[in-house]
């Protein structure tokens, strides 16, 4: 074949096959380095050992969760066998006063209903206050904020998330509660007292409203930063498509961004709920710690987390202790479910490692 190849200048001539050393014999001129490395060995054992060690660390995470569950189940067994499932919704009526008496360490009957009620009410109140504000902040920071301000403001919201619970509680006790007592509760009583939700029989300023407000402040950064993440994950093309139809900026946000991100936003809200359910220190410092169920949001109450913190040190009997631990077990299960649901929703929108929210 005569190939029509362009002129390629070849700078050397023929092949010279060198005499290869006879098989099985290493050339005597192996350098010191080569000898060292050849004698080195293959570290197969070290490799395997190391990978097992890393696996062990990873598996220990399972072990820890299982251990926690096991301990809670074991220690709550006494209460569980005494009261069964009714622990969470039974109502004892005190024969003398005719009023319900849920949590009676002295007489040894325990019902967790007031704490379930308190947890639900305070969390719901917190969500009511936090969600609109969190979404508002997220919208502002993602879509409206001038670029210069974005960094510092985002940093400030992160800072809110970093403040420890006990410091929120301290501030709430000494600043927020008097504020509510003097300036917020009286108007609420005057204006909305007719609904029955704002009675005037608790002038301390403590209670569900105080707990709801401080909880709202605490869960706000979580909802907001997660909402920001899902909003940023909405592709720019969606925004542009809506704008091209002649929408105002708000309409673009509503139809192009929020609508696409709504699953993730729901996930963010649920994550905030999960945090609110388990929040202890700030709540226990302002909720008044009364194991009662009252219609008034201004009355003292108690949550599942706050009663544990409050009563554990003075738990009088084994049954009392076991009842408190059963409440902890319920909290454990509920928060796992709620958090798992939230992660699922957020993951569905961001399609990858779920947001690191701490």
């Amino acid at each position: 074949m005569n190939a029509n190849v362009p002129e390629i200048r070849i700078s050397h001539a023929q092949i010279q096959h060198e005499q290869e050393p006879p098989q099985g014999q290493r050339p005597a001129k192996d350098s010191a380095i080569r000898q060292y490395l050849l004698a080195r060995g293959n570290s197969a054992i070290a490799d395997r050992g190391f990978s097992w060690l890393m696996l062990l660390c990873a598996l220990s995470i399972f072990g820890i969760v299982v251990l926690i569950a096991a301990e809670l189940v074991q220690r709550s067994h006494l209460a569980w066998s005494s009261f069964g499932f009714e622990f969470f919704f039974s109502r004892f009526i005190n024969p003398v006063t005719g009023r319900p008496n849920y949590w009676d360490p002295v007489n040894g009957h325990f019902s967790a209903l007031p704490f379930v009620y308190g947890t639900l009410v305070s969390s719901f109140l917190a969500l009511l206050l936090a969600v609109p504000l969190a979404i508002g902040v997220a919208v502002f920071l993602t879509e409206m904020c001038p670029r210069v301000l974005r960094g510092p403001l985002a940093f400030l919201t992160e800072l809110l998330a970093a403040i420890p619970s006990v410091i929120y509680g301290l501030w709430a006790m000494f600043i927020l509660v008097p504020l509510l007592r003097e300036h917020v509760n009286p108007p609420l009583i005057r204006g909305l007292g007719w609904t029955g939700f704002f009675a005037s029989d608790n002038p301390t300023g403590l209670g569900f409203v105080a707990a709801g407000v401080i909880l709202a402040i605490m869960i706000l950064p979580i909802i907001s930063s997660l909402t920001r993440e899902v909003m940023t994950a909405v592709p720019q093309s969606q925004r542009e498509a809506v704008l091209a139809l002649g929408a105002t900026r708000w309409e673009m946000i509503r139809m192009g961004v929020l609508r696409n991100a709504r699953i993730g936003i729901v996930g963010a809200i649920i994550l905030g709920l999960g945090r609110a359910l388990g929040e202890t220190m700030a709540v226990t410092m302002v909720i008044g710690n009364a194991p009662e169920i009252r219609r008034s949001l201004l009355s003292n109450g108690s949550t599942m987390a706050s009663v544990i913190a409050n009563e554990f040190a003075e738990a009088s009997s084994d049954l009392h202790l076991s009842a408190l631990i059963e409440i902890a077990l319920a909290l454990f299960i509920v928060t796992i479910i709620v958090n798992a649901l939230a992660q699922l929703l957020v993951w569905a929108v961001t399609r990858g490692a779920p947001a690191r929210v701490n």
Partner: protein
Amino acid sequence: MGVGIEVSNLNAWYATNHSLQDINLNIPGNHATALIGPSGCGKSTFVRCLNRMHETNPIARVTGTVRIGDLDIYEDCTPVEIRRRVGMVFQRPNPFPTMSIYDNVCAGLKLNGYTHRQALDEIVEKSLKNSALWDEVKDELKKKSGASLSGGQQQRLCIARALAVDPEVLLMDEPASALDPVSTAKIEDLIFQLKSQYTIVIVTHNMQQAARVAENTGFFLNGRMVEFDSTHKIFTNPSDKRTEDYITGRFG
């Protein structure tokens, strides 16, 4: 001195993708051998089978024999052991970003436990001279990080790093494809000088490069080796029509 490579019935799969089919060839020692072929023909996969780097991909599978010198690299030793004898230079320069130039060059030694200070100094100097980088960096060996060099310098650093462990074979996977023409020329000169000490296998897209530096050339197509012969013959009088079509630019 370099040793020859003998490949028999090599087949490679990535999961169900049969990327190398029945490769048989003998690469002579102390020569430079070029592997050419269109994108995706398997030349990179082949070269990675020679130092068992394809095993870093969990879905990769190989059958067949590869003998380097007197050693069956799949039966007689572990991947770690063979990689100390067969060095590799990658397409994109990849110096270790947290290490200085000095530490980069002797990384293969230090990480394998070799710590004789004086010997390391000598080895670093020798390797950098062999890779034509010594004069440019000799004053800043320990102060400058490996990543702060230019692209061409980084690639020569990677070559020095590979040479420092004194391998018998040097595999180069398109070493100059990410570089500018001046750096490319420098590296080609390097290969020309190095092949008297090592066996070099160089994968290249650039046929002129193959012609300039290699005594032998192998042409890969669709996972098979179509032709392997002296570079002169491949480029002036190839035996297979497919080879001729490729080098005349009809495809690829």
